[in-house]
């Protein structure tokens, strides 16, 4: 598998680490136990197109949001995580 890192260009799978479903958002500090429980434990396991977190640990150490078809491994989009790169969000 090849992933086009937005900072480094097309690189081989071995440079990346898979984390999983990128959909769950960390709840706000006051969201309560149920919301955090869902965030920590409930994951979709889609046979098809999924948004996933990948880490370019063998390259620029960016966290990436990758849209991948779990049936074909086809990658249709790669975006840097909100805080990836040098600048802080909104700066």
């Amino acid at each position: 598998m090849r992933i086009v890192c937005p900072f480094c260009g097309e690189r081989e799978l071995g440079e990346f680490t898979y984390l999983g479903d990128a959909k769950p958002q960390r709840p706000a500090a006051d969201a309560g136990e149920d919301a955090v429980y869902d965030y920590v434990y409930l994951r979709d396991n889609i046979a098809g197109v999924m948004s996933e977190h990948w880490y370019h640990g063998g390259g620029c150490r960016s966290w990436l949001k990758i849209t991948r078809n779990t049936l074909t491994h086809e990658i249709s989009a790669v975006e840097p995580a909100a805080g990836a790169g040098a600048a802080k969000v909104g700066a």
Partner: protein
Amino acid sequence: MAGVQANRLANGGLIDRSDPLNFRFDGKSFAGFQGDTLASALIANGVKLVGRSFKYHRPRGILSAGSEEPNALVELRSGARREPNTKATTAELYEGLEAASQNRWPSLRHDLMAVNQLFAPIFVAGFYYKTFMWPAKFWEAIYEPTIRRAAGLGRAAGIPDPDHYDKAWAHCDVLIAGSGPAGLAAALAAGRSGARVILCEEDFALGGRLLSDGGTIDSMPAAEWLSRALAELAALPDVRIMTRTTLFGVYDGGTYGAIERVNDHLPSPPEHQVRQRLWRIVAKRCVVAAGAIERPIVFAGNDTPGVMMASAMRTYVARYAATPAKRVALFTNNEDGWRTVETALGAGLQIAAVVDARPDVSAAHRSLASKGGFPVLNGSVAAVDGGRDGVRKISVSLTGGARAEVEADGLAVSGGWNPAVALTSYHRGRPKWQDDIAAFVPDGAPPGMVAVGAANGVFGLGACLSQGFAAGAQAARDAGRSGKAGLTPVAEDEAFSLNPLWHVAGKGKAFVDQQHDVTASDIELAQREGFESVEHLKRYTTLGMATDQGKTSNVAGLAIMAAVSGKSIPETGTTIYRPPYVPVAIGAFAGHHRDENFHATRLTPSHHWAAEQGAIFVDTGLWKRAQWYPRAGEKDWLDSVTREVKAVRGGVGFCDVSTLGKIDVHGPDAGAFLDRVYINTFSNLAVGKARYGLMLREDGMVYDDGTTSRLAEDHYFLTTTTAKAGPVMQHLEFCRQVLFPEFDVQLTSVSDQWAQFSIAGPKTRDLLREIVDPGEDLSNEGFPFMGAREVALRGGIKARLFRISFSGEMAFEISVPARYGDALVRNLMQAGAPFGVTPYGTEALGVMRIEKGHVAGPELSGTTTAADLGLGKMMSTKKDFVGRIMAGREALVAPNRQVVVGIKPTDKASRLRSGAHIIPKGEIPGPGNDQGYVTSVCFSPTLDQWIGLGLVERGRERIGEIVHAHDPLRGEGYDVELCNPVFYDPEGGRQRG
């Protein structure tokens, strides 16, 4: 000198008669030529019997001339290089080659295990499952070892492989598999268009079937066209031709696997060269011109030595000038088989008869027969009579019911051709049935791939050339190359006609899968017993599961299954195709990553110095760390460790702690960011101070710990445990980039940039004053406990000094740029000599941390909470942090959790071992009263007894209680006292002094 090559033609072929080679097969000497394979050389020497079959030990010969060979498997080379199951049909001959036949005893001609044939009725499909059911214990003791001895292929060397294997990457626009007419045409078109081309050819010679079948291309003989094409390709700057290289797998994103047999054609690789190289090739487009495999027809005795694929016989005669038989019969169901007759006649061989299963034969062939003086029999071969010396007599069922007999010493068989659909099917593609050629052809292909020529079911030479050329030109355009492809090579298509025929019923064993000894009746039996699905059929009969992966047998097998189950062949379907296409040695996948290079080795900055001291090293992850430093007269490790601990507690010692993960945290929001990742607060840490921090996972369990210092308003220096250095960096980057992107903070891994030493013991300051610039104030007031700042060393080097203690003694950790680590350690030894400075290893480090009750890896097990570790009070209630909410779950704050407690045997002389389970005193141990376990132990020189830490239910409320430590693994048990985990200096006066 070896004997004459009786079956070698005087002229012709692509062998080099000026370069004779000697070789041995089963100890007997033979001669061949450069350009031979082992199979062609054996044929030239009249050797027909080359092996014994897997199950029945039947005599077997050479069936094919390529990597599809099921029978002619040998052990090649000897000693450590002995390689079993090597195909004689692809092994290149070299001077001094040694090969031995397999699966026979005591010799190939007199194989006692051939008695298995008498038991043939019990060796039917599924016989393992049926015959060896009971008694169960007999399976391991008797049945399996006996079967393994009797059935099987070659023997592995059993000793380490002396050769090296390499792994490499390559990138190109157009990757081409196969150098037959279609592949070469594709390479010409793509190469002329300016594409970067890689062409992989399994054979050592380029040309594919052109080498055996000839023909006319662009009005010149094929051989001439071939040499011109190869010269043109060689002159193109971006075309790379790789012979002896098999494309074996297709992976995601246009990545392909190929194995290059770099030096398999030599007795052993030249010095500093590898034996084989595993390639991962990344290609924008791939043109599969892998050809087709001629398929056998199944009939009784079809495994007799001398029965050979018709195209293979042509190859041996035309390419190798070796004649497999003197009097040849042909059994064909198609037009192509007749080319073997033409080749054989051209080489002066006798034709005994042609048995053609088609109702009619062309006038041209009839006139060829009358000119050659041989009969054309309309019908099928029903049986072959012969034994280990090969084919003698062939009985033919004529159309209409009559029978005929033909005397011959060789039988060429052609059942048509199966396109090599493996590469196009590796992404779970299913090939589709094409009626006119009665074969499966690719139905689409993985992205970027296209099949051409015979691999795509196109058999005519002209069609192969034009299809290959068009695909090569298109692939180049798709890859963004716009050069001119030029003119398409032109040739005529051969006539094509075929009547499908898979199996001729008859008496005697008729083999479908010759390598695994699967017969037509095994398939019929499988169907009767309900194993009708092709995937069941495969596993029940083992059809297609041998090292050849059923290249010559799968389609025939499922055609027979289709016939007996009353379905069509496409309804019956194919099994899933999986790589590799040919066997690939595990050594090639490992490459250089074996023995000491299995993984990278990380050495600490003081490693070479420690090695000079005779340190014993321990592997911790990739690191090698000094475990202890033995001295003369010490009888074991405990002696050394005890001395090291006493030296630290009584004087001064140092330990390399550079393996800790180190991360620089920069930015105006550095403190706020750390507040989110640690359970305690760092934003309020004063500049010049250090603080112990604890991180949780989001599920509330402890993740890692370490000391973090504030070196400037916007600069923290964070340390992690050795084991978690990488994972914590990844976790912090996740927190920074994904969870909390609003913070202005940057992280830099500096683990390798700093050499860090812990210097501990009451004389630490005395030693440091010899190292640090005299202007630096190291007094308790000037550099108090948990102070952290940059200092100058004598000589001007800047260092970071942290007054932190893991040992419980007055201690500092000192960091210098890694390149000064070796100099620093030597300076410490020199400057510390008057104070008796003692280097200590990870064992002494561990002893002192247990004496001091500090938690480490065994307690940070991923199942403990901060409160379990006695650190619950560190959890801030004034801020959000990773793991905060989940840490409050009912089960994580339950009062009966197992928590860290000190443990010491009531008998001071008793040893304590980690892993022992804690149960109430006087009770019989069982899962119901298991209250925890011992996590860390050591012999404490300070307390002069074994002590430990453990996780024990309600442990902190039970200090002073006597419980039982039960160790069923070692058959031990002893009473222990639960105690304060801080065995040494619980008030902490020593580290603050």
